[in-house]
């Protein structure tokens, strides 16, 4: 059976700075220069105030797990990777991302603190995954 390709992002003028940032090890989100709100995913207009004056800024790369699932039945090209963990992470800046949780030997839980780790997929795409921040108290 031939291995089906994994989904590859089609870069556009909204998304290019984000994906290029991933390759450079920088997590880029946007901030609206008019209303000062952070925005993710990147777009050409602020969903909070309709301004078109948005700038990419570097996120700290720290966040909290909002929810997650451990996938036991993957679709298509992901079926051989199970089990793996997908999460929604709330960045400290206040925006939410979908991601994978990696290096969570003890498992992961909602409310856990996580940090970004850029990971190269087997096809070369660099994705922003997150891993638990090791602290004395979880």
């Amino acid at each position, binding site marked *: 059976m031939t291995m089906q390709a994994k989904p590859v992002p089609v870069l556009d003028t909204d998304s290019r700075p984000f994906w290029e940032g991933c390759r450079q090890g920088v997590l880029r989100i946007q901030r609206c220069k008019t209303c000062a709100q952070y925005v993710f995913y990147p777009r050409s207009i602020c969903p909070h105030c309709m301004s078109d004056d948005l700038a990419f800024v570097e996120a700290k790369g720290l966040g909290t797990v909002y*929810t997650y699932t451990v*996938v*036991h039945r993957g679709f*298509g090209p992901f079926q051989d990777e199970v089990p793996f963990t997908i999460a*929604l992470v709330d960045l400290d800046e206040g925006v939410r*991302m979908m991601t994978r949780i990696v290096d969570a030997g003890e498992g992961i839980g909602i409310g856990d603190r996580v940090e970004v780790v850029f990971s190269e997929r087997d096809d070369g795409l660099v*994705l922003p995954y997150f891993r638990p921040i090791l602290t004395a108290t979880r």
Partner: protein
Amino acid sequence: MRRDRIAAIVGIAESDIGVTPDKTVLQLQAQAAVRALTDAGLHTRDVQALFCAGAWTTWTNLMLAEYLGIQPIYTDSTNIGGSSFEAHIGHAVAGIQAGLFEVALIVYGSTQRSQRLRGKVPGEVGLTEQYEAPFGLPVPVGAYAMAAMRHMYEYGTRSEQLAEVAVAARQWAMQNPRAFARDPLSVEDVLASRMICEPLHLYDCCLVTDGGGAIVVTSERVARQCRHKPIWVLGHAETHTHHTLLSMPDVTSTGAAVTGPRAMAMAGIRHDDVDVAEIYDSFTITVIVTLEALGFCHQGEGGAFVSGGRIAPGGSFPMNTNGGGLSYCHPGMYGIFLLIEAALQLRGDAGMRQVPNAQIALVHGTGVQLSSSATVVLGRD
């Protein structure tokens, strides 16, 4: 209850359902359309407005209308996922109220099971989908799993409570000869079934079947001349709140919180007035978050609400009386079957599973990743 009668469901039908390897998606829809029109005592030449939604082509209405020999004077291919058909009802009523047409046909069909269309992963993802698909979340099940996980965290909802939804659906299905899955099912069976996406097990997930359905909606004037007593559309409302899951502020609270009150206010009914509910059950968690958002119980209390047989046959809250998407059929987009079953119950033609003296039905569709919501309130004279 609302007194003015604007539009009614006068024809309902399902096509062959389950596994239909010898049928095309157009054949299923044509079969359902002809059956629904015949049920109403109408003909394809009477159809003025066509409503259709599906993933089988970009040109749903053009292709289907031509195949049926219809040249509609009003057409609507609104596709907001499984709830599209509840939205179509609202649009049809609005068009009838505006005097644009008197006879509307709503159609759906899918051969997703026989064509093995589920679980496909796109090779390239553009626009806003590129921020989710590369991570490998199986959709839609993974999205609903994350909603369930958060619901458990916030409210202490348990897997046993999710399983109650599947068990009740199966008990209803066992009273429906046309249901796809009719073997007995227990809470223990659900919990012992294969884990798909934590915390959702296999039996927390809807079926994957073929099938189609059709509904005829007409003005009051036409409805009075049809074969069956009219099933009045008393209220309707729709919304969509997001597309990407990352854009859903609270994954345990859906747009049903908006559409439920709007539709019920239009109908002039309260929760206690609802005799039978048809609630989209793509996954067991879908039912729990929807019942909460609609206000049948408080936020976080859905797990307790569905427990103890309340939603099962003989319970105090008859729901998903055909067996639902979990046990009756689920050909990709299920919303049209909710409406068909609600109308059948209000006609009093539901056979073994008939809810005695049902006069008011509440139908709620949910689409995509808890993204779209549409509520319809139906009633009979």
